[in-house]
């Protein structure tokens, strides 16, 4: 417990100080890491804890992003206020999806979630007047507020990571204790969970709602970061990317999520530097190698490291 708090403190200090040593552009990239971090926190609750596979989480990010975009562009809202609202709208969408999803499990649920981003993209293009259609909506660059004077990228970095820290604490509180145990029991055996008095339907739907809420906030921040939203900003590959990040992080663990987020932001870029012609191949190879060596993801690796340290008496 002490070592965990220690690690978190060190991580917090590093995150606070990092922009001083980073260029604007790298600060921006680390903001994206923060955004993926938030999305992965949510996906972890759904897939890592309650065991429901979602191949369409990018769609909930899109819901949050469009909420922010439509409110700021079409209705002139101040961007900060739209962030929690985007989370709530996406959370509601998640709950709505979670209800019919109760009838599905495993592969069939995955297929149903697969349809989400595709259906959403068509809806976005159809309601042109509302969403800007294929051309999309263009937002203003985030300006530093609340008395701070800094570049848009660095402001975004601090905004993202502050929200990420708060949501991390919330996720930690959510999964410890009864709720976490209930969710994990759903993963292992629904029958056993039901016979232990867990309301399976309620918790499964709740997991969808909460994870969609997180995705919505991440999507809202992504809209502010990229300052542009159109159906292409949330392709199917984003949902797969999130799942990849979760697996790299180590399913069902909060500690590895930072590494998962870091991986999905930077490794595709590094792959492009390695090979201009086939970056996806390089990315795939790195991913396969990583999972072969660390099948339990970053969290497993960290656990092994600390086990090692403890054994050597440190």
């Amino acid at each position, binding site marked *: 417990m002490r070592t965990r708090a220690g690690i978190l403190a060190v991580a917090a*200090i590093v995150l606070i100080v990092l922009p001083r040593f980073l*260029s604007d552009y790298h600060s921006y990239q680390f903001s994206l890491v923060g955004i993926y971090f938030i999305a992965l926190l949510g996906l972890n609750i759904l897939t890592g804890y309650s065991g429901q596979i979602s191949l369409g989480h990018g769609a909930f990010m899109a819901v949050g992003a469009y909420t922010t975009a439509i409110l700021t562009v079409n209705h002139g809202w101040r961007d900060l206020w739209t962030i929690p609202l985007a989370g709530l709208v996406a959370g509601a969408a998640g709950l709505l999806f979670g209800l019919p999803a109760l009838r599905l499990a495993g592969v069939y649920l995955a297929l149903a979630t697969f349809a989400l981003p595709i259906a959403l993209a068509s809806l976005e*293009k159809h309601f042109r007047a509302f969403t800007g259609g294929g051309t999309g909506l263009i937002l203003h660059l985030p300006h530093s507020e609340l008395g701070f004077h*800094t570049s848009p990228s660095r402001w975004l970095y601090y905004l993202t990571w502050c929200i990420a820290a708060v949501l991390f604490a919330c996720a930690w509180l959510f999964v410890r204790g009864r709720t976490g145990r209930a969710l994990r029991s759903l993963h292992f055996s629904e029958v056993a969970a039901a016979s232990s008095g867990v309301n399976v339907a309620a918790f499964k739907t709740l997991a969808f709602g909460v994870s969609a809420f997180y995705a919505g906030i991440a999507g809202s921040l992504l809209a502010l970061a990229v300052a542009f939203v159109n159906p292409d900003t949330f392709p199917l590959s984003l949902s797969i990317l999130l799942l990849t990040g979760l697996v790299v992080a180590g399913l069902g663990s909060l500690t590895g999520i930072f590494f998962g987020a870091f991986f999905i932001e930077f490794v595709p870029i590094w792959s492009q530097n390695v090979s201009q012609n086939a970056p996806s191949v390089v990315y795939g190879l790195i991913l396969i190698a990583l999972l072969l060596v660390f099948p339990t993801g970053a969290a497993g690796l960290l656990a092994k490291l600390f086990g090692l340290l403890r054994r050597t008496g440190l």
Partner: protein
Amino acid sequence: MKKLVLPVVIVVAVMAFGLSGALATPQSTPGVTATTVDIGGTFPFSGPASLYASIPKGMSAYFSYINARKGTDGKRGVYGRQIHFTALDDGYVPANAVQLTRQLVEQNHVFALVGGLGTDNQTAVRDYLNQMKVPQLFVSTGATTFDADHGKYPWTIGWQPTYHAEGAAYANYLNNHDKGAKVAVLYQNDGYGHDYLDSFQAALKNKNQVVDAEAYEVTAPSVQSQVVKLAGTGADTFVIFATPTATIQALVIAYKIGWHPKLYVNSVSATDTFLTLATNAAGSAAAVNGAITDQYLKDPGDPTQRKDPGIKLYFRIMNKYGPAGARLTDILYLYGMAKARTFVTALYAAGKNPTRASLMNAVNHLNEQNPFLLKGVSIHTSPEDPYPICNDELVQWNNGAFSAKTGLIKGC
């Protein structure tokens, strides 16, 4: 409680330290050194519009030529500065254009963005570039807004004649020569397609002349259902406001289903390269013959223009600096080269120590006789008239060559 005091103090001190250092330090003139000028742009080297990749290649070839030759001041490059042009692949996807443009500005620290391609792509980055006060010059799209909204976005300007002017030119031709035509339109379902369609319809005297207009998505693999539907309306005139791949498909499908309407093909897709591809795919020149389009550039595919000094210069530069094995009759190389020449003209006018502001000032007061444009078409801007190229002419394709249908039309 006491145990928390020290950690809290440390955290607060670190925050103060971290935040104080996070203030950005501006650069003097990004992208310009004593010996180099860095510029960049995003283009579709891959994806549904990859046939446009010839444009940045033409631009690169011209910049290589400028970097190697000695100018009138005896120096290579522009005032002794070599032009470094970074063309990145956005795959014609606006979200990628946003990411890559940001990278060019914040990581590559380019002086200006030049020639970026795609209506929706360049619209997506326009706000960002104007807020960052980075010149977005001579975008490779005729969408009217880039010139029309120059007052609102002073760092952004187009280059080619607007789609508005082009759509209106086709409509006026129909008004004058074919009032009774029943028109079917195929258009791309995005800003580019809508710009053409709206301008075309607005300029038609007979508002009921368009019997049907069908849209297709950029990402759609085929336009078959749309073309079949349009053919079914019994229209005798087919207007195509589509990018090259979809245009070629539409021409081939129309021919194969036995529909032989009078053709109007938008200039971005009616080059020698694309019309020849359509002819070959359809197996007959009749699929494409008679197609009317709009031109303002000289045509390297036209054998009668070979003696023209501008065309000779084009071939000389492309043979020496162009990509190996390039099909030099592709007018898009010439388009890129013409645009690059305009940029070089503006860069000279920006002075011996150019800044982004002096570059924009030069761009707002352009007066260029470009050897790659048709005779009578010149490049001219002023603060009141931010439309660089205003004149063009309608030409007709027959058996591998264009012939003029009208004289020069003034589009703005």
